[in-house]
């Protein structure tokens, strides 16, 4: 947001920050457009229909994961379907007569209280507190893939329905239980009589959703399991979770015990943090950048070549380089021309150092060392010869 620098004589200063008026003039279009976008967004949210979130296996939900279709089918067959979202409501319904309890979610429900409700019980999916709701049923650690499965059992409700879209929990019922739709070591449907009624556990509720109900024998299985003629109490997750403030010993929650000032003090603290953030966040002038020259070590290529030698264990090349360097330095010291042949060099060197000509020849022109220790040894021997020559 810089304004064009006016031409001024050197040594003369000029302000570069925009004044309030020029800032408004340069940014008013952006501000107006932004305001317009915000206005449209707010109006759209206020006037548009509030989209209800999909509620899984809810008899009132028409979305793909809801179960309104199943509930309507049951009602068509004269089965009363009552949707409840708490244990208290379910217990109140149960008091009116012999009913079937369909449990789809127990996240916010006291499962022990739920287990005390008498009558038939159908439990769908991996709800919390399955041990209490279906005593004796164990789940396999491995989840079963949800797919179309054959009943392979004697349960009339399942055999009549045929294949169904099942999976999820892999279950093992107590002794005397009928298990259908096998998956791995367990089954995805277990039914057994218990106390006052029949408890049926299904591994996954997918077959009851609006999306899957028309496939396979899903609808038949669901109607056979739930539409036994008894009125159905359909327990779903409440739309708003109950408040979590658990009362303490004297029946007061933590929030009740807190003085009313605390909440306002927290608001004030938030304001204080914002003010502090403005204080620390405002920079004193621009960030100054600079194009710096490249920093590259001149020896990097040499180091890289050394690393390549090392990586490939290039003893031959390394030995050649060391030998060539030594020969290059020794030839003038031995009084030879730079183009001297190998025999001349070896002979002169052997004569001057008193070393065996064979050994000198092998060191200067022999085969490359067989291993790294040989290379280190060769380097040491070359150094030794150079020292001898320079000390003479």
């Amino acid at each position, binding site marked *: 947001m810089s304004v064009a620098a006016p031409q001024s004589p050197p040594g003369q200063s000029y302000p570069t920050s925009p004044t309030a008026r020029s800032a408004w003039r340069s940014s008013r279009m952006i501000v107006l457009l932004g305001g317009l976008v915000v206005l449209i967004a707010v109006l759209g949210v206020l006037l548009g229909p509030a989209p209800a979130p999909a509620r899984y296996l809810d008899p009132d939900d028409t979305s793909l994961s809801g179960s309104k279709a199943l509930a309507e089918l049951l009602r068509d067959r004269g089965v009363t379907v009552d949707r409840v979202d708490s244990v208290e409501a379910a217990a109140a319904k149960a008091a009116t007569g012999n009913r079937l309890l369909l449990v789809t979610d127990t996240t916010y429900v006291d499962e022990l209280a739920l287990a005390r409700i008498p009558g038939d019980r159908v439990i769908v999916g991996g709800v919390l507190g399955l041990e209490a709701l279906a005593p004796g049923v164990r789940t396999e650690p491995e989840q079963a893939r949800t797919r179309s499965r054959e009943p392979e059992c004697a349960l009339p409700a399942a055999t009549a329905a045929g294949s169904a879209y099942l999976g999820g929990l892999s279950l093992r019922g107590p002794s005397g239980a009928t298990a259908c739709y096998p998956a791995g070591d367990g089954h995805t449907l277990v039914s057994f009589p218990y106390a006052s009624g029949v408890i049926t556990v299904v591994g996954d509720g997918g077959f009851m959703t609006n999306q899957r109900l028309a496939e396979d024998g899903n609808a038949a299985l669901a109607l056979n399991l739930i539409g036994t003629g008894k009125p159905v109490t359909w327990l779903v997750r409440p739309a708003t979770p109950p408040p979590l403030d658990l009362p303490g010993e004297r029946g007061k929650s933590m929030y009740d015990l807190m003085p009313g000032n605390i909440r*306002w003090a927290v608001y004030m603290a938030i304001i204080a943090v914002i003010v*502090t953030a403005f*204080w620390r966040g405002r920079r004193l002038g621009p960030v100054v950048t600079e194009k710096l020259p490249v920093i590259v070590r001149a020896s990097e290529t*040499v*180091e890289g070549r050394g690393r390549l030698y090392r990586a490939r264990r290039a003893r031959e090349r*390394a030995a050649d380089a060391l030998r060539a360097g030594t020969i290059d330095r020794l030839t003038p010291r031995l009084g030879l021309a730079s183009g001297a042949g190998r025999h001349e060099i070896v002979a002169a060197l052997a004569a001057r150092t008193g070393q065996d000509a064979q050994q000198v020849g092998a060191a200067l022109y022999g085969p490359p060392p067989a291993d790294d220790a040989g290379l280190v040894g060769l380097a040491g021997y070359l150094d030794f010869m150079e020292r001898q020559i320079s000390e003479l």
Partner: protein
Amino acid sequence: MALTGRAGLVAAVGIVVVLFAPQPGAALAGVCLLLAAAIVVDLVFAGAVQPLRFHRSGDTLVRLGQQATIELVVENPGRRRVRGLLRDAWPPSAGVHPRVAELDVPAGERRKIIVTLTPTRRGDRSSVAITVRSRGPLGLAARQGNHQAPWTVRVLPPFLSRKHLPSRLARLRELDGQHPALVRGQGTEFDSLREYVVGDDVRSIDWRATARRHDVVVRTWRPERDRRVLIVLDTGRTSAGRVGAAPIPMAGAEAGGGLFLRPDPRPAPGWPRLDWSMDAALLLAALAARAGDQVDFLAHDRAVRAWVSGASRTELLSSLVNVMAPIEAELVEADSQGMVAAILSRAKRRCLVVLLTDLNPAAMDEGLMPVLPQLSSRHLVLVAGVSDPSVAAMSGRRGSADEVYDAAAAEQAQLGRRRITARLRRHGVEVVDAPPDDIAPALADAYLALKAAGRL
């Protein structure tokens, strides 16, 4: 606009007030309104930043490693006192101090602020902005604004090798025959005739002049004067490599490793070859100018980067450091053919061409070697290269197999360097190959040797 720490403190005190107030909601609203009102009052009564005027004066040239002092006068023509902070923003490598200064200028008055720059890099450094934060009377909020007061400081190469100049000048006087030790002047240029005194070399007796006069007359000689020296600086990629230990801490010359990086165990990367070459070029130019030669300067990579010609003896060094200051190594392969063409088109008469480059066998083979004959046939060529002491150190390591592999690589590099040197010498080219600390005196000595031998 800016808030101060005091505003944050007031808001923090507000937390305590709200905590113990009988009506916390009202207290919160009260504290917030009070704070907002105080901020507005502060902003209204703070001295205006917009009308401030700045005047700079002081150094525009500074050698790398030294300090430039700039006076910044702040004039407040407004109606209110301006009290707060001032930041004079410069690029980081300008090394500005103080970063932020306290400012207190009463209405209608002016105050002076001394800003010192300790640059860590050659080149031009320009001030970026002046930011003033003017606090209100309550110290809760401040007005803030930027100003531009253009000023540029040119950071010159340090010319550290000038410490070698006196000894080389003494050698030059010896050559000139002006030395008090009465050594016969060497050289090949005829200077004058004078009477023979005992101790003169009999070979220098001019018999024809002796016959004409009644005295034995000797010729005196002096080194050639008014020769031309053309210093050519290769600013291509090979000049970017850093060698040696930085005599003056330079941007990037410190040991690596930032806040989040592990410190680099290797030695600090030192100075670029370019800076060492510049140092050597300056010593040579100073020496040649004193020796009465005409010095020209050319910097070239893919194009001519700098060209100094015909500078008088007194002006030469200052104009050289001036054109050298902004030159940085370009990360491109130098165009040797273009460089030779540029030299040939500029140097009509025979001259000494001092080429400061790297004796890198691969780059030389492809670049300079094919075109060198064109140059050496018309001019005397001296190639000077800065060698890398760390490669020399590497070639001596024998600690483990890994170090021997490194030593072999270093040996390979040095071998290539020696071979290229030998090939250059075969072409009749003088070569100076010295580590960074010695390149300047070595080049000066090579020049003196050429002069003594009368080869200029």
